[in-house]
C-alpha cells in the first residue's frame, strides 16, 4: 500500500465530513495493518506525538488568551489607543490595529479573539461614521496579528513538529507581526486620504494619563511572559503557566472573573485544546507512514529536478499553502504539511525558522478567505453579519497581507535578524 493511496483516502474522508483527526487516522491505520505492523504501534505513535513538553504551551496559551478576553483587557487597550490617536485622520482604523497589536502579546490565536474584537471594534467604528464593511474587514485582517506575534499557538505547534526552538520562532515572528500591522496601517492611511471627515476629538491630558494607568496591569502580562523567559526565571513553556496565573490575578483584581466564569473558561479551553491535540496526535501517525515510505525524499528529488532555486521553491510552497489554507484549519494544515515540506525546504537551504514564519503567515491568511475562513465565520456570527459581507470588507486587506508575505519570502533577514541578534 503506497503513501499516495493513504493521502487520497485522507482527502476523500475529509470531504465526506469525517473529523480531520479520524480522516487522517483511518487510512493510516489501514496502512499499518496492511504492512503488518504490530497492534498498538499506531496508537502509541499518535499518543507520543503529543507527549511533548513544548506542546504543553498550547493549552496554556489558549487558556491565557481566553482569560484575557474575559478580563476586559481589550477595552482598556482600546481606551488608551483612542486617547493617544484620537485627533489623527482615520484614527479608529489605527486604534483597531493598535488594540490588535496590544492584545496579541497575550493571545496566540486569531479565532480566540476575533469574536471579542468584533463586538468591541465594529460598533465603535460604525458609531463614529466608519463604513461597516471597512470596520469588519479591518477587524478580520488585524486579527491575524495575534497568531503571528508571540505567544503564538501555530508557532508552538510548528516548533514542535519541526524540532526547532520555540523561543527562536517567537523572536522570528516579532518583525513579521509588526510588518502586518504596518501594512494594515498603510492601507488605513491610503483609505483615509479620501476621508477628511474621519477625525476624532483630541483627548484631554488627564484622559491619556488615566487610560494609561488602566493599561499598566495588562502591560505587565508581556513583561511577565517575555521578561521571565529572557531573564531566565522560567522556560517558554513554564512562562505560559506563569502568564496565565498573572492574567487570572488581574481578572480577580478587576472583579471580572467569578468562580463560575473561571469554570466555563477552563472547560472551553479544555475542549479547544483537545480538538487541536487530537489532530496533532493523528498527524504523528501520518508522519510515521510518510517517513517510512520516504515521501519527503521523493518529493524533494522531483522538485530538485524542476528547480534548485530556493526562492522559486518558496514561491511554489506559498502558492500551494495558500490553496491548502483556504480549506484547512491552520493547525491541522501545519501538522500535515510541515513533516513533508520542511525536509525539502532544508534540502533547498531554507532556514527552518524562516520557513516556519512563512508557513504560519501563509496559513493564517487562509483564515480570511472563502470557502472556509474561520475568522470570517466567527466575526460574522459575533457581529450578526453574513459571511459574504465580512469577506467583501476583508478582501481589500488581503493585498497588504500578501505583500508582507512576499517580502518575508524574499528577505529572510527580516525574519532571522531578531533571533540571531538574541542568540536564539
Amino acid at each position, binding site marked *: 500500500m503506497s503513501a499516495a493511496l493513504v493521502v487520497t483516502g485522507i482527502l476523500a474522508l475529509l470531504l465526506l465530513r469525517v473529523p480531520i483527526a479520524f480522516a487522517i487516522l483511518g487510512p493510516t491505520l489501514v496502512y499499518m495493518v496492511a*504492512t*503488518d*505492523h*504490530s497492534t*498498538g*504501534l499506531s496508537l*502509541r*505513535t499518535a499518543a*507520543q506525538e503529543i507527549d*511533548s*513538553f*513544548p506542546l504543553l504551551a498550547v493549552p496554556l496559551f489558549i487558556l491565557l488568551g481566553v482569560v484575557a478576553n474575559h478580563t476586559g483587557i481589550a477595552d482598556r487597550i482600546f481606551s488608551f489607543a483612542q486617547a493617544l490617536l484620537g485627533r489623527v485622520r482615520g484614527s479608529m482604523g489605527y486604534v483597531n490595529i493598535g488594540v490588535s497589536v496590544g492584545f496579541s502579546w497575550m493571545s496566540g490565536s486569531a479565532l480566540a479573539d476575533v469574536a471579542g474584537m468584533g463586538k468591541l471594534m465594529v460598533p465603535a467604528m460604525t458609531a463614529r461614521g466608519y463604513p461597516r464593511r471597512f470596520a469588519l474587514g479591518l477587524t478580520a485582517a488585524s486579527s491575524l496579528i495575534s497568531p503571528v506575534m508571540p505567544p503564538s499557538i501555530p508557532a508552538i505547534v510548528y516548533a514542535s513538529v519541526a*524540532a526547532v*526552538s*520555540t*523561543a527562536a520562532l517567537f523572536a522570528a515572528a516579532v518583525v513579521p507581526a509588526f510588518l502586518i500591522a504596518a501594512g494594515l496601517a498603510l492601507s488605513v492611511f491610503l483609505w483615509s486620504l479620501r476621508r477628511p471627515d474621519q477625525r476624532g476629538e483630541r483627548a484631554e491630558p488627564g484622559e491619556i494619563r488615566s487610560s494609561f494607568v488602566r493599561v499598566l496591569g495588562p502591560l505587565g502580562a508581556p513583561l511577565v511572559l517575555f521578561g521571565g*523567559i*529572557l*531573564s*531566565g*526565571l*522560567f*522556560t*517558554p*513553556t513554564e512562562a505560559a503557566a506563569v502568564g496565565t496565573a498573572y492574567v487570572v490575578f488581574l481578572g480577580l483584581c478587576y472583579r471580572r472573573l467569578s468562580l463560575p466564569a473561571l469554570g466555563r473558561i477552563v472547560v472551553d479551553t479544555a475542549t479547544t485544546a483537545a480538538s487541536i491535540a487530537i489532530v496533532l496526535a493523528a498527524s504523528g501517525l501520518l508522519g*510515521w507512514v510518510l*517517513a*517510512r515510505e520516504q515521501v519527503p525524499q521523493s518529493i524533494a528529488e522531483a522538485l530538485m529536478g524542476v528547480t534548485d532555486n530556493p526562492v522559486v521553491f518558496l514561491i511554489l510552497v506559498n502558492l500551494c499553502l495558500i490553496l491548502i489554507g483556504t480549506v484547512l484549519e491552520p493547525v491541522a494544515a501545519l501538522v500535515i504539511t510541515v513533516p513533508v515540506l520542511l525536509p525539502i525546504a532544508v534540502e533547498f537551504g531554507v532556514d527552518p525558522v524562516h520557513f516556519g514564519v512563512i508557513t504560519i503567515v501563509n496559513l493564517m491568511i487562509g483564515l480570511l478567505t472563502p470557502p472556509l475562513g474561520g475568522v470570517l465565520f466567527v466575526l460574522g456570527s459575533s457581529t450578526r453579519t453574513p459571511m459574504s459581507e465580512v469577506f467583501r470588507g476583508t478582501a481589500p486587506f488581503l493585498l497588504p497581507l500578501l505583500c508582507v508575505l512576499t517580502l518575508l519570502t524574499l528577505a529572510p533577514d527580516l525574519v532571522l535578524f531578531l533571533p540571531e541578534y538574541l*542568540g*536564539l
Partner: protein
Amino acid sequence: GADGDGTEPTLTFTNSYAEDHPHTRCGIDRVAEEVEEADAGFAIETFPNSQLAGNTETFPALMDGDVDLDVQGSAALGSAYEPIGVFDAAYAFSGPDHLFSFFDSSETDEVEEGFEQETGAKVLDLWYFGDRHITANSPVLSPGDLEGLRMRFPDSPIYLDNAEALGASPTAVAFEEVYLALQQGTADGQENPITTVDGDNYAEVQSHISLTSHQIGSQMVVVSAETWEQLDGEQQQILQEAVSDVREENRACIEESEREILAGWEADDAIEVVDDVDTDAFREQARAYFLEHLEGEGLDLYEAALDAEETATHPTPDREEP
C-alpha cells in the same frame, strides 16, 4: 518487521542522531554498507535523526518488531529492564577499553539474557558515545563545586542517581529547552559528551567544560528478537560481524570528532576546557554512592564492572560470533 518485497528482507535501522553524527556516518550507515557488500540476501535501510519516531518511541516499536535495529542508551533500555541501566552509572568504567572488555566478558551474559527475556530484544554490541562531562559557567573541579548549581540531567532514574552520586542538585528542564535554559540562566549547567555539547551549541552559552568523564557514554545496538529469528545462521553472523566490526571504527570516529571540536574550541576561545578535574574525588564519592544504593542484579553488575577494571588494559579477544 522485516518485510520482504518478494525478494529480500530489508531491515529498518534507526537512531536519533543527525546525518553527520559519528553514530550515523560511522555507525548505522557503515553497518548498512557492510551488509550490502556481504550480499547475503538481506539489506538495511537507515532512518537517522529520529526520522521514523522520536528517540523514546523506537525501542517499544523494536520490542514489537516494528523497527528491526536501533541504537539506544543503556539508561533508556533500563526503563524496560532496570539492571541494564547500570552501564550508564557514574564511574562504572574508567574508559572505553574497560567498558568494551567488560561488555565482551562473560560477566555481562546474565544481564543480556535477562534483558532479552524481558524485552524480546537482543543486544548485538555496544558502541562508544564519548565520555560525559560537565558544562557550567564556572569550573567544576571537585564535588564541592557543584553545590548551589542548578544542574540539568536527563530525567531517567540512572541519570538522576548520577546527579546524586556526583553531589549535584538536578533541575527539571525538557531537552528541547536546555539551550535556552542555559543561555538565560534558568539552569546553571548540564552534562553531555563533547559531540553533543558541540552539536547543540552549548559552548555558546556556557563558559567552562570540566572534563569529569563521569560517565563513559555508550549506546547499545539492539535487534528485535523476531527479526533476528527470521535471519538464517549466515545472515545472523554477517549482521553481528558488521555491528561488531564497526565498533572500533565508530570509536575512532567519535574520538576524532572530539579532538577536532576541542581544537576548534581552543582556536575560537569558545569555552574554557578544564582538564585538571579532581576525578579521584568524584570517582570515590560516586562509587561509594552506588555501592550503597544499588541492589540485586544492578549492584552485582556494578561491582563486577569495578572488578574488571584491572584487566581493562589487556583487552580480551573480540566476543564470540553466534
